[in-house]
Structure formats: structure tokens, C-alpha cells
């Protein structure tokens, strides 16, 4: 049997469109889901295989929306959320893992329990991806730092491995409702905006105005210095343990943290 590989765009919408198209193909060909596979187009990450035909699936809001409604209704919010996290992963096999998990879930009697099916390798993979993405989201909530610009805007630059930016929106807009803030993903050139007392929104393909981003408020350096001093003073000398500190706070995050700036 020839296998059709549906090549999706990287976004969640793209992957869900792939799920939709694969589903249609599986049913209409009469060959079932074994006949379909999903891959993500991130430039180079899928190896062309023999006996496979490749089909591009441009992201389609309507198709993705239909899949979302089905997932929420038939697998439940918890599963849906897990799949969303998994799709935000950067791992190339994420689309396939999500697709197979959906297939497994919809064929089960207790559909909303699909995540408990740890013996299914695709479910286990989704769970693993979700755990990684969830961990990274949490680390951004911990270690992301805002700096105050001259115009009062709070700016944070992040460089997450997975596409977690949109998961930061609800958290920060709830805690900083009266601030204008901007979180910028330097890896993906995406930004999350929040305007005072309004809802947050995202923008793709955006260059950060570095000149503007460099003009910090008069108080900014003062508070950075204060916090750096606080962090240094709070450590107990006779308990020093740099290895432990590194274990909890990998060097990877420290470049955006003022307490680790060399001063």
C-alpha cells in the first residue's frame, strides 16, 4: 500500500489542517489511517522515502476549526490542551504523534481517557512532548524578565526552543493589566502585545526596533542593580553550591536575567 504523507505548515493550524486532510483521505480511499502519515515542513526535517507520495497541505482556518471543535467535544478539554502543547513543540514528529493519538482516542470507548493509554507509543510521545513544552512555558514564567523602556513599555525578549509565546499571554495580561508590555520571541520573530486594560494579541514576522528597545527608562538600571544586589546578598556563603544553582537555573536562560549580568 502506498503511503500518503501530508506535509503540514509548522503552526498548530497547519498541523490540524493536515489532520483534517489525512482524515478525509483515509476515509475516501477506503484504505484507513494506516495509509496516511503526517510530517511538518520545517525546511528540511522530513526525509523523502520510497513508496510514499507527498502532499502539501496549506493551513486552512476552516478545516482546523472543524478539527478543534471535534477534539473539544469528543476528546474533552484536557486532551485538547495536551495536544495543543504537543503541537507547540519543535520536534519534527509532533504532527504524526498528534494525528495517531487522535485516531486512537476517537476509536476508544472511553475517549477522554486516551492520555492514560501509556502503552500506545504515540500517546506516550504526545505526553512527553506536552511535558517538555509545559516545562518550558513554566520556565519562561519564572525566568523571563521585563525591562522598562523610556516610553513606559515593558519589554521582554525570549528565545524558547518550542513555540510557547502564546501561552504566556493569559498569565502576564492577568497580572499586569495596567501595563503596556511586549514579549518578543527572537527565534521566531513573533511578538505578543498587551495594551493597558485591553486584550493581548500576537503578531508574526516582526522585526524588533532595536534602537527603540535599547532606550530604557531612567529607573531601569537602578532596579536592575537593586535586584542584582538582592540576589547576591540573599545567598548564604557557607551553603554555596553553584552546581545546584546551575541544575535549577541552566546557563541557557541567564543572558536575559539582570541578576546574572556581569557588573
Amino acid at each position, binding site marked *: 500500500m502506498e503511503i500518503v504523507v501530508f506535509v503540514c505548515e509548522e503552526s498548530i493550524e497547519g498541523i490540524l489542517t493536515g489532520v483534517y486532510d489525512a482524515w478525509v483521505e483515509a476515509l475516501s480511499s477506503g484504505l484507513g489511517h494506516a495509509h496516511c502519515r503526517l510530517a511538518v515542513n520545517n525546511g528540511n526535517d522530513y526525509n523523502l522515502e520510497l513508496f510514499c507520495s507527498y502532499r502539501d497541505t496549506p493551513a486552512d482556518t476552516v478545516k482546523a476549526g472543524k478539527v478543534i471543535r471535534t477534539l473539544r467535544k469528543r476528546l474533552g478539554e484536557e486532551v485538547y490542551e495536551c495536544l495543543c502543547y504537543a503541537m507547540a513543540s519543535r520536534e519534527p514528529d509532533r504532527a504524526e504523534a498528534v494525528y495517531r493519538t487522535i485516531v486512537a482516542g476517537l476509536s476508544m470507548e472511553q475517549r477522554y*481517557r486516551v492520555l*492514560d*493509554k*501509556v*502503552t500506545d507509543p504515540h500517546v*506516550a510521545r504526545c*505526553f*512527553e512532548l506536552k511535558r517538555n513544552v509545559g*516545562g518550558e512555558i*513554566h520556565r519562561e*514564567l*519564572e*525566568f*523571563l*524578565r*521585563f*525591562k*522598562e523602556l523610556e516610553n513606559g513599555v*515593558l519589554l*521582554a525578549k525570549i528565545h524558547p526552543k518550542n513555540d510557547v509565546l502564546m501561552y504566556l499571554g493569559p498569565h*502576564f495580561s*492577568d*497580572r*499586569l*493589566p*495596567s*501595563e503596556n508590555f511586549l514579549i518578543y520571541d527572537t527565534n521566531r520573530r513573533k511578538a505578543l502585545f498587551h495594551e493597558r*486594560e485591553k486584550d493581548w494579541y500576537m503578531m508574526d514576522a516582526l522585526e524588533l526596533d532595536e534602537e527603540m528597545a535599547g532606550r530604557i527608562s531612567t*529607573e531601569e538600571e537602578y*532596579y536592575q*542593580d*537593586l*535586584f542584582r*544586589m*538582592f*540576589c*547576591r*546578598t*540573599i*545567598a*548564604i*556563603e*557557607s*551553603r*554555596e*553550591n*553553584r*552546581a*545546584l*544553582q546551575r*541544575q*535549577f*537555573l541552566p546557563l541557557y536562560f541567564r543572558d536575559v*536575567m539582570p*541578576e546574572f549580568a556581569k557588573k
Partner: protein
Amino acid sequence: MFYHVSMSTEKKELSEKNTVKYPAAVGAGQLSVMEKLRILTDAAKYDVACTSSGVERKGSGKGMGNTKFAGICHSFSADGRCISLLKILFTNYCIYDCRYCINRKSNDVERTAFTPEEICELTMNFYKRNYIEGLFLSSGIIRDPSYTMELICAAISRLRRVYRFEGYIHVKAIPGADPEIIYRLGLLVDRMSVNLELPTAEGLRNLAPNKNRSMILKPMRQIQNGIVNSKEEVAIYRNAPQFVPAGQSTQMIIGATPENDYQIVSVAEALYQKFGLKRVFYSAFVRVNEDRMLPALPGGPPLLREHRLYQADFLLRYYGFGAGELLSEDRPNFNVLLDPKCDWALRHLELFPMEVNRAPYEMLLRVPGIGVKSAKRIVKGRRLGNLQFDDLKKIGVVLKRALYFICCNGKMMYRTKIDEDYITRNLLDTENKRPPQPDLIDGREVTYRQLSLFDDVTAAGMVPPPGGQICAGAR
């Protein structure tokens, strides 16, 4: 909504009570804020608790801040401890002379105090930059406990009402302060704690001449009752003000006085059961003062002992163990080499190996290498099919520890002996390489990082134990 409520009850009290003027005598304004922050952070650093957990609250939309149930850590200091709250003293002036304390009256150290304004500005500005989850305010005692508590209350109410700060606030209640002030403060903050200081009344008598046990237990009881009453009221009137919604904690110093581990764990157990505490913190004694009453600690603070106590504390709170199961009069101290859970399992080998596909949840929790999360996933997962060792690994079971104690479908992973010496030797190979872990970890990280002290971290790279063989039945 939260503030809305506390404001209405509090407004009139404040106008009456706000008669306490900020004491000019404590030297406010003479030093720069930078200097004050250095001094009052340095003076606060021996306080252990830095958690921001216990209460989930959305922002009202009108102020700044919210709280997450699991808490969030924002940084880690050079000693590997988490930084979650702006942990400072209001002042390091003190009329008492506790022998273990850097701020005691007889010490010649630089003294200062924050103004309420300074505390508010620091908290707000750190918070909005995502440096902290909130404020942890403690204090030395100026004039008397009630006077000091009133000053703290004024600063906190300014932070809540004028600055509209809705993030996490933890304050220390000072034993001996007027219960009415403690009550008022409890309506403004998320967590309150009273330091037990030392595990026994006798230790306290020797090292803290101005304090005594009953004076400490009194506010602890008051806060406990306040929390219970407030919960009942909130259940009836949804808008009733919440009193200390994130619960009460305490801390004690380990190794300054001669109590054994069994005494300490029993005290902790009693605090959880009789005072409804959320957390008990243990702080390895750091010798900051020259004093003949204090023990010399040539090896530095007793970090490993502290670590064992935190592990045991987890077993009390989440794993259903009792203090008397872990230690006894005859065996009053923890095993230096093995964590308390492994130690317990080795003394109960008759219960093992346990069949993972059938053992009740409570028993799974007792298996070394299986944590709360993995035990839950095992119970869910096995409903949908028989679990194999591979599945356990994916679930997050630390097989290199668990393998001596479990079987899947009647088979153990390797051919191992169920023999105390043999298992101990093999376990030590993994255990010994572990550095002493930190005490204070917050947040979702409590479940993730701190539980990882034993169990919930996936074992990377499984090596068969010396002498072990891959059992054909396992795969």
C-alpha cells in the same frame, strides 16, 4: 474582588488605627535604599521559607498581580536556594537577644529600617519586571511586639490599598503581639508564619531567653482558628474576607540544639496534625555568632541532615507515612547514606516485590522510585492494559531504584536477590553520587523539582546493576 472585600472591612479600622507614626528614631532616610536593601536582605537570608504557593487568585483587573497555586520561583541564588519572594526584614533593630541570631541586641551590626514607601516601591518595581512573586516581610522587634506588628501592618496595608498590589504576601507574625493586629494583618496577606525557632521547649529556653514555647504556640493557634473560621464564612458568604488563604507555615533550626531526628519529625507531625500547618521548614544551623552556648560546626551547616528531614517531611505530607514508621526511640536518626523511603523499604522487604499491575495506590507510593505522579499514572494506565517495564519508564518511574521492589506481570526486571545487603549496596551506587539537595523549592517545581529528590525524574540511561542480568521476561 479580593481587595474590594478586605477594603470595606478594613477602611474604618485603618482610619482609627493609623495613629502609629513611623518612628523617626529608627534612622529611616539616612541610608540609601541600596544600602538598606543590602543590610535588610543580609539580615533576612537565614529565614528559610521562600515559597509563593498555596493560593490561586486571578487579578481584579484594577491593580497589579495575581497568585498561582503552585507558586513560581524566579531565580536561584549561589547556594542553590530558590528566590521567589522579596525576602527582607522591615528592620534589623531588635530588643531581644536570641543567641543564634545575627540581629540580636548584643551584636554590633549596622542597623536600619525601611519606610513603608520604600517597601512598596521595591515590591512593585521588582514585581512588574517579573523578578519576584511578591513580598516576604519579617522583622526584628522595635519597642515591643505589638508596636512592630502595627508598623508592618501599616506597610502591608499601604501596599495592598494604595499601590493595589495583588501578588503574594507572606508575613511573620511576632509572638506576643496583640491578637487583634494579627487578625487585621491576616486579612491582608496570603500566608503567615510563626517561627517555632527550635524543636523543643528546652532548646528554646537555652538559646532564646526572651521567648518561650507557649508564647509561640499562641499566635499559631490563633492563625489556625482564623483560617478555619474564615473558610467556614467564605463557604456561606462568598464575599467574606479571606484570612491567610495560603495557610500557615513555620520553621525550626536544625543542629543548634541536641534533639534527634525522631524528635524533630515527631514535632513536625504534631504541627501538621494539631495546628493544620501547610508547611514546616527546616534550616540547617549556620553559626553566625560566637557564643559558648552554640555548638561548633567544623563541617559547616548540617545540610545532609536537613535534606533527610525534607525528604521525611514529604513522606509525611504526600506519601501517607507516620513519623513512627520512619524512626523510633531505638533508631532515632536517619540513615546518612539512604533516603528515608529506601531505608523504610529495606526494613520491610517482606512486602516486596510488589506487583505493579495490582498493588493498591497507597502501596505503590511506598515503593522507592515511584512518586506521587507516577503512582497516579500507573493506576490510570493499568486500567487500559497490563503495564510493562518499558511503560513504567515512560511514566516516569525511576527504575534503577524501583527494580528491586517491583514486578510486572509476575516477573522482576532483572534476576535480583531480595536481600537487604545486596539491595543496599546497589542502591548506594546511585544514591551516593547525589549532592545534598536544597530545601526550598517552590512552585509547580515543588512537585516537580522537590519530588525529584526521590522519584519523579525519569532515569536517564539505565545501567543493569552489578551482577544483574536482563531478564527475558521483562521485554
